[in-house]
């Protein structure tokens, strides 16, 4: 053909992705746009049969930038039809990528088709230019993609999604799942995870307590364990951890507040002890005040002791209320440790009194280093036996807290529980009034429960804390010392008076004894004894027992106590109380106020 042909597409170009090869099938009938000349009216619309031609396909973006271009040579069939696959031609130099490299990014793309009649393939004429659309069936029917499928736009799946054949699924972005998710195999999360809902680990596993794989929750991979943050401030209603079993709550770890301190048994006990000490100290001051004429310096010493006691109480309360944290609560009441039996074959049960020999226990208590009780269910159990030692050779021995103790005979609250020397493992109750000094070394603890059975009773007993069994003896000894002191003072006065009389009656007597007062109280000028140790100075000759404690009195007492302690060789710069007292004005005021209130309350309890 000499003329340049232009062509029209009269059949739909069918686009579909081939099953095996990449490409877009393209089918068209080439129509001769020139009319066939015959006499009269020429014939138009003839197809072009058996015509060699070249087809150039160009896929370009919305800005007419070529994304892909290829040329194919073909020949029309006898009906003028061509059947080609876009993607199987020869890529031109204008094409930036091969067909499989086309970025089907969802942006508009156009297909330009140009043809060149003949075999030269150089003079191309545009045949069609049309936008590319998705294949309608692909929208409504099943899609089978045997190769890679890349969807750059937002995708909506209105039904289930299944990734079969064990194929992995990888998400580089975030995953939001509104419905329930079920993972039937191992879940690995390699980054920080936030679970904003309740988590229940319902692992169908079992095993012994020494098997790591038997635990549904295992936390590892860090030098830290578990961190728990609760909403709001801590209190006894907010449990950090609560322990359940089939019978309900068996324990918990909860926050502590000031109110919890007042209900803490140890705090109550300590308060009682402080009250008793205060009463004794007040009595000592009263005694010293009564003997002021005989020994005025003693009053100063007792005043200093009072200051120290007040400071100790204040420091304890500050410590008690400033060191609140979490409480480990359980029906169990003691801290215990695993201790091996001295005689492995010996049968030892909970609640039995045992003697400790070099860290091993036996029911034989006579001659033991200390007495302890086998715990039944400690809240904390330390000294876990190593793998080389079976737990069957050890017992859980209570160190501190409340443990049940097998006691022979009746028991009253407050009785001391002392051990039998027989090695039976039983204890017996001794009232504080009947406790003999030779029984002090046999005291195991103090009963906090009554038992009326004259036989064997399992009595709740507090162990490992101050049970005050020494207080009565100390108080008794203190009274005896005070009595002796008074007697000495009286005798000194009598001797001084006798010396005066003898000096008047016997010439040279005074010179013979070498002093104006042969027997007298050591003056404040005497700074050291024969050992070189400082002797407590006399700070004041006036009585310092006030009826009402004032700020000035407290400060004066602190000064006296400091001087007294320094004389005792105490380095106040290393004393935590005095260091903080001198460096922290707020703390100083708080201590002063606490001392004033406590002292005045104590005086009010005792009476004038």
């Amino acid at each position, binding site marked *: 053909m*000499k003329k340049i042909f232009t062509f029209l597409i009269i059949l739909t170009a069918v686009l579909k992705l081939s099953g095996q090869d990449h490409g877009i099938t393209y089918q068209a009938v080439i129509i001769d746009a020139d009319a*066939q*000349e*015959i*006499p*009269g*009216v020429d*014939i138009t619309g*003839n*197809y072009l*049969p058996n015509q060699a031609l070249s087809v150039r396909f160009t896929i370009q973006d919305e800005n007419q930038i070529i994304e892909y271009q290829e040329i194919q040579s073909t020949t029309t069939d006898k009906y003028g039809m061509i059947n080609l696959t876009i993607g199987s031609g020869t890529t031109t130099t204008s094409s930036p990528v091969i067909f499989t490299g086309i970025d089907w990014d969802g942006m508009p793309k156009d297909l330009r088709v140009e043809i060149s009649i003949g075999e030269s393939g150089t003079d191309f004429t545009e045949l069609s230019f049309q936008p590319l659309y998705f294949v309608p069936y692909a929208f409504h029917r099943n899609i089978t993609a045997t190769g890679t499928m890349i969807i750059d736009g937002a995708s909506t799946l209105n039904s289930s999604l299944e990734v079969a054949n064990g194929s992995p699924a990888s998400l580089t972005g975030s995953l939001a799942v509104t419905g329930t998710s079920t993972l039937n195999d191992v879940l690995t999360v390699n980054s920080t995870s936030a679970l904003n809902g309740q988590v229940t680990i319902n692992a169908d596993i079992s095993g012994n307590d020494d098997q790591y794989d038997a635990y549904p929750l295992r936390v590892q991979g860090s030098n830290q364990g578990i961190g728990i943050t609760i909403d709001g401030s801590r209190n006894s209603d907010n449990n950090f951890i609560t322990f359940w079993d089939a019978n309900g709550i068996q324990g918990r770890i909860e926050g502590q507040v000031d109110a919890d301190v007042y209900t803490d048994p140890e705090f109550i006990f300590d308060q009682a002890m402080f009250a008793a000490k205060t009463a004794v100290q007040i009595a000592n001051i009263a005694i010293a005040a009564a003997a002021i004429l005989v020994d005025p310096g003693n009053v100063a010493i007792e005043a200093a002791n009072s200051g120290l006691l007040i400071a100790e109480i204040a420091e304890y309360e500050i410590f008690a209320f400033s060191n609140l944290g979490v409480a480990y609560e359980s029906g169990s009441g003691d801290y215990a440790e695993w201790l091996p039996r001295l005689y492995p074959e010996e049968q030892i049960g909970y609640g039995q009194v045992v003697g400790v020999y070099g860290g091993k226990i036996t029911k034989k208590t006579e001659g033991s280093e200390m007495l302890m009780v086998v715990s039944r269910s400690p809240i904390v159990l330390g000294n876990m036996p190593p793998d080389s030692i079976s737990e069957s050779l050890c017992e859980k021995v209570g160190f501190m807290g409340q443990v049940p103790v097998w006691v022979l005979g009746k028991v009253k609250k407050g009785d001391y529980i002392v051990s039998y020397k027989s090695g039976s493992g039983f204890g017996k109750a001794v009232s504080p009034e009947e406790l003999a000094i030779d029984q002090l070394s046999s005291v195991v603890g103090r009963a906090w429960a009554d038992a009326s059975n004259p036989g064997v009773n399992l009595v709740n007993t507090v162990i490992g804390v101050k049970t005050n069994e020494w207080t009565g003896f100390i108080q008794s000894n203190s009274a005896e010392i005070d009595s002796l002191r008074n007697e000495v003072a009286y005798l000194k006065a009598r001797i001084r008076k006798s010396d005066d009389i003898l000096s008047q009656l016997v010439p040279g007597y005074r010179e013979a004894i070498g002093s104006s007062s042969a027997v007298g109280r050591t003056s404040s000028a005497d700074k050291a004894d024969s050992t070189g140790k400082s002797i407590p100075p006399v700070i004041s000759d006036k009585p310092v027992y006030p009826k009402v404690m004032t700020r000035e009195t407290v400060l004066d007492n602190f000064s006296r106590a400091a001087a007294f302690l320094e004389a005792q060789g105490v380095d106040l710069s290393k004393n935590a109380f005095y260091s903080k007292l001198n460096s922290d004005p707020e703390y100083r005021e708080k201590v002063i106020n606490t001392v004033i209130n406590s002292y005045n309350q104590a005086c009010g309890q005792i009476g004038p």
Partner: protein
Amino acid sequence: MKKSLCLIFLSISTLYVCGQQVYIETGTAISAFHYKNSDGESLDNLFGSNNLFMQIGYHAVSTVNRLNYSAGISYIGYGASGSDSTVGNYFDWDARYIGIDLGLDYEIIKKRFTTNSLSELTVYIKLTISPEIMVQGTQTINNEVYNLAGVEQFKYPFIFARGGAGISYSINRAFTLYAEYLGGEGFPVKIGDRDDKERLWIANHNIGFGLYVNLPSYKSWK
């Protein structure tokens, strides 16, 4: 065109007329298209067709021995049909032309069978020239019919030149029967685009039978 017709009539009118006849003729017009497209290529599978023609006119005997002339009006049909096996097209034409037919005939044989007989057999040869113009025509292409009026190759008149022979027989003083064959080809009088090589000629073969009616002034030559 007008000049040509005037010259023909002036030439004929200079002849001495010694006998006059009117005639009427009808017969079959066999036509075929001779066609070349712009590339000079002819159409394959192009066939002729048969149509009816009618003619009526005036026939006179000139003073020149045995030479007669005639002038008449013709109504003739031309047509053709064909197909294109390559693309499967079918097409045919059916056109009606009216023309002015001018002719000269020369009697080469004239024989009276008896002395007193008025019956006379004449064999003659004849040349005609006939400008014709289409008055109605249709073209059919694949079952679609188009009007040929004003269409290229048909909108301009054709001039047909024909030649042939005939035989006539005078059955009495008034009427003469004749039969003749005229064959020739028509050429368009105007071509729209001289550079366009597309051309159409119409080949024509007329076989007709006619009747001369002697006018009262008719006088046959002796």
